[in-house]
């Protein structure tokens, strides 16, 4: 429903957007025994790595082709080859996954060609899958990088297999956390279905202590599982950003697809469960009937605190749609919506407009709002405006436990509702006598009745408190 407006500014002030290579890296980090590589200067990888570490509080496997002044001009073939060989030799990953950067795309490196050449020249790489995604920093954003990487994984590694009727492929969007994936997998397995999650950061970035240390990713979708996706009876994507990969699976393997624009909210999960019931021939398990009832109750409890509040929200398209729609269903008004790039998701957003802009746009639009919703970089705007901030998306570097946060399914939706409602409870305005300014006459009158309050001689200094329940 929302009308999309592009910001007119040339300068992005406090940008909301992250660029493609980071999104691509996140997708690659959801593959097991994988080494993601950024084809660019060492600095790109260094910055991306630190940001991923700060969000997930995890050691992150990420490599660089370390482009320098000379190779940037001459082209990066040698660096690609050296990187592949060095990684294969020392870390022996099953998959090496490369994404490009602004530097190498500006130069115009033909990485597809490079990889083909290396393949011919270096048989020691024969046992290693190599995936490449084209992800220049100067096109699209985080979700686009993720989408391109996911599609590249599918196109490179999946082949048709005989269909297994009880197997489905789940393509989570980049806005889903490890905790979200765990929740969705459990829902699907509860119907007796077997699920291939691609990519699966719940195996690799879920905040656990690995028993050993290899230098590649530890956990995630295995190469065998990726290949086995060729046998799934259905592809189920979460977020518009998964559509390309789902279409690729349809094209290559013939798998029918169904994209859920979000799985945060009550009705969308009703639909998911009905679809799973239909696919599996099983009824909706009692556990989820109970959870639905709990979610509905949570919505009823929560709506007293979210009803009528005005929200300023900034997020990538699919995340914006998921959280924004839920807030709308909880009675909130999406007063100011900011996103990064164009997407079919914006058409579904229950708001008047979406600005493709930055956090300055959010800050300007939030002045009469009750709540800000965006990633951790929104904390300064929230502090300046003295309003609460609900942290969502990536990066959230000033909170622990991001990996376990769950905002999908009935249960995750419920948790998000409680989080928002409790945040708003803390903001309940308690009226004070000064809200109804008393006239000078009245003050004079009052002063002849009651002496001015005495100042305590007590050493403790309690603050002026207006009572509240």
């Amino acid at each position, binding site marked *: 429903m929302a009308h999309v407006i592009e910001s007119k500014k040339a300068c992005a002030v406090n940008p909301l957007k992250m660029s493609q290579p980071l999104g691509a890296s996140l997708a690659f980090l959801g593959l097991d025994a994988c080494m993601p590589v950024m084809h660019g200067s060492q600095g790109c990888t260094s910055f991306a790595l630190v940001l991923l570490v700060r969000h997930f509080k995890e050691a992150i496997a990420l490599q660089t082709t370390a482009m320098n002044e000379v190779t940037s001009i001459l082209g990066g073939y040698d660096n690609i080859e050296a990187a592949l060989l060095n990684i294969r030799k020392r870390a022996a990953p099953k998959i090496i996954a490369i994404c490009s950067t602004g530097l190498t795309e500006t130069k115009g490196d033909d990485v597809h060609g490079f990889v083909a050449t290396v393949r011919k020249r270096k048989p020691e790489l024969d046992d290693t899958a190599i995936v490449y995604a084209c992800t220049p920093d100067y096109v699209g954003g985080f979700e686009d990088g993720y989408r391109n990487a996911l599609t590249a994984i599918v196109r490179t590694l999946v082949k048709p297999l005989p269909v297994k009727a009880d197997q489905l492929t789940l393509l989570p969007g980049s806005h889903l956390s490890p905790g979200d994936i765990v929740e969705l997998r459990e829902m699907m397995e509860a119907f007796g279905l077997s699920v291939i999650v691609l990519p699966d950061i719940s195996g690799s970035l879920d905040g656990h202590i690995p028993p050993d240390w290899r230098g590649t990713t530890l956990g995630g979708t295995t190469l065998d599982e990726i290949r086995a996706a060729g046998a799934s009876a259905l592809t189920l994507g979460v977020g518009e950003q998964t559509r390309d990969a789902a279409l690729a699976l349809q094209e290559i393997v013939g798998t029918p697809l169904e994209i859920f624009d979000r799985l945060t909210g009550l009705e969308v999960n009703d639909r998911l469960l009905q679809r799973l019931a239909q696919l599996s021939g099983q009824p909706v398990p009692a556990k989820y009937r109970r959870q639905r009832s709990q979610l509905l109750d949570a919505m009823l409890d929560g709506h007293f605190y979210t009803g009528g509040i005005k929200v300023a929200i900034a997020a990538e398209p699919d995340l914006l749609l998921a959280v924004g729609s839920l807030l709308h269903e909880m009675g909130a008004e999406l007063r100011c919506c900011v996103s990064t790039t164009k997407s079919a998701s914006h058409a579904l957003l229950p708001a008047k407009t979406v600005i493709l802009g930055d956090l300055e746009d959010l800050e300007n639009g939030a002045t009469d709002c009750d709540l800000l919703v965006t990633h951790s970089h929104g904390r300064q705007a929230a502090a300046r405006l003295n309003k609460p901030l609900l942290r969502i998306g990536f990066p959230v570097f000033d909170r622990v436990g991001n990996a376990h946060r769950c905002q999908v399914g009935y249960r995750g939706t419920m948790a998000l509702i409680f989080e928002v409602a409790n945040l708003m409870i803390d903001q309940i305005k308690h*009226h004070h006598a000064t809200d109804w300014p008393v006239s000078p006459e009245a003050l004079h009158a009052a002063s002849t009745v009651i002496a001015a309050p005495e100042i305590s001689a007590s050493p403790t200094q309690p603050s002026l408190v207006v009572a509240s329940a």
Partner: protein
Amino acid sequence: MTATVEERKATNKALIDEVLKAYPEKMAKRRAKHLSAYEGGKPDCGVKSNIKSLPGVMTIRGCAYAGSKGVVWGPIKDMVHISHGPVGCGQYSWANRRNYYIGTTGIDSFVTMQFTSDFQEKDIVFGGDKKLEKIVDEIQVLFPLNKGISIQSECPIGLIGDDIEAVSKKKSKQYHGKTIVPVRCEGFRGVSQSLGHHLANDAIRDWVFDKTDTGHTSEFESTPYDVAIIGDYNIGGDAWSSRILLEEMGLRVISQWSGDGTIAEIENTPKAKLNVLHCYRSMNYISRHMEEKYGTPWVEYNFFGPSKIEASLREIASHFDDTIKAKAEEVIAKYKPLMQAVIDKYKPRLQGKRVMLYVGGLRPRHVIGAYEDLGMEIVGTGYEFAHNDDYQRTTHYIKDSTLIYDDVTGYEFEHFVEGIKPDLVGSGIKEKYVFQKMGVPFRQMHSWDYSGPYHGYDGFAIFARDMDMAISSPIWGLTKAPWKA
């Protein structure tokens, strides 16, 4: 609803009959007297009231302690109110009501604090008077700026023979005439919190006024425009949004009973030219007493919704001279456009919505005008602890055929709501989740659901917004699961 008045009466009668069927015969007979459909023009609502509840049939009533400590005394901010007895009831009800106040909590104000003598077995066996004395001494040390102490009796006090009156007198004397008030509001007395209001009123009469009358002097200078607000507990700021209107019309508010009030204000009240009474149920006793003993007239008013506010301002002004009358008209005129804006915004969304109420005090009748200002209709109402005079007053508010239920049980109320299917229920937190889970929009009409104020012109804007929010929430469309239960 397109049904005629007669059809509605018939429906309501049928509902009542159906509900009564589930009771044993004797009980059905007794409950029948509390339920009716109002016959337009009759001088009361046709129900019995203020009769004791039945064992094993929980209603929404509280007890005398609730009426005294929780309602009347608790908001007097510069006194320490001791819940005297075991730790239970006072602790359970701590901060249930949002009686706002200005002051430094723990220094000169104590409303949101909780004080209890925390009786142990030995206090029950050997009596608690010694402990009470010690507590009074401790309070003098810990909170030297307190202006008085009240002793709110919990149930066991009435059984163990303690003489809290003697302790109060002794300690008052020791502390140079300090106000120390014993209140015999044990929970087992009376049939509801209503007796607690009465006992609390009487305690003010006997332990505050009588003391003031006999020599306790104050430097109070009267003016011809002095009024006292009686029966406003300043929930969510109600008294503040009311007081400003009285002041705008030229009156001087010398006292607030008891929201954001002080003991000095209470003492000065007999000098008011007029007592304006909002909650009749809880404070008519002391108003009558002041009229009889000090000649202070009193008038009831209703500050819910612009229609009633307008009428009330005029009624209050009628007790004063033309200056005040003219100013009252100015106040009315000043707020008219604001009120129209509120009505223009919400009435189209709320027009025709049907409401059932079940509350305490003055609200089952007083709020009706505010709903009607928004185009809404009250189809049922009832009181937790009303007396017959409340039901008489209610007849001025309700329409022919309105369902009336006194001291309703949870079971009855649920059945009535299921039968009538209102668009909104306004009642207390005990009922909230029953109806919410039934899918009926609900607002707490005791504590305003952490919102408020609802009194005065400012309050009406908040009231309208809150009712709209409850009724218009998108959630009500999601309740049905797509599969069979």
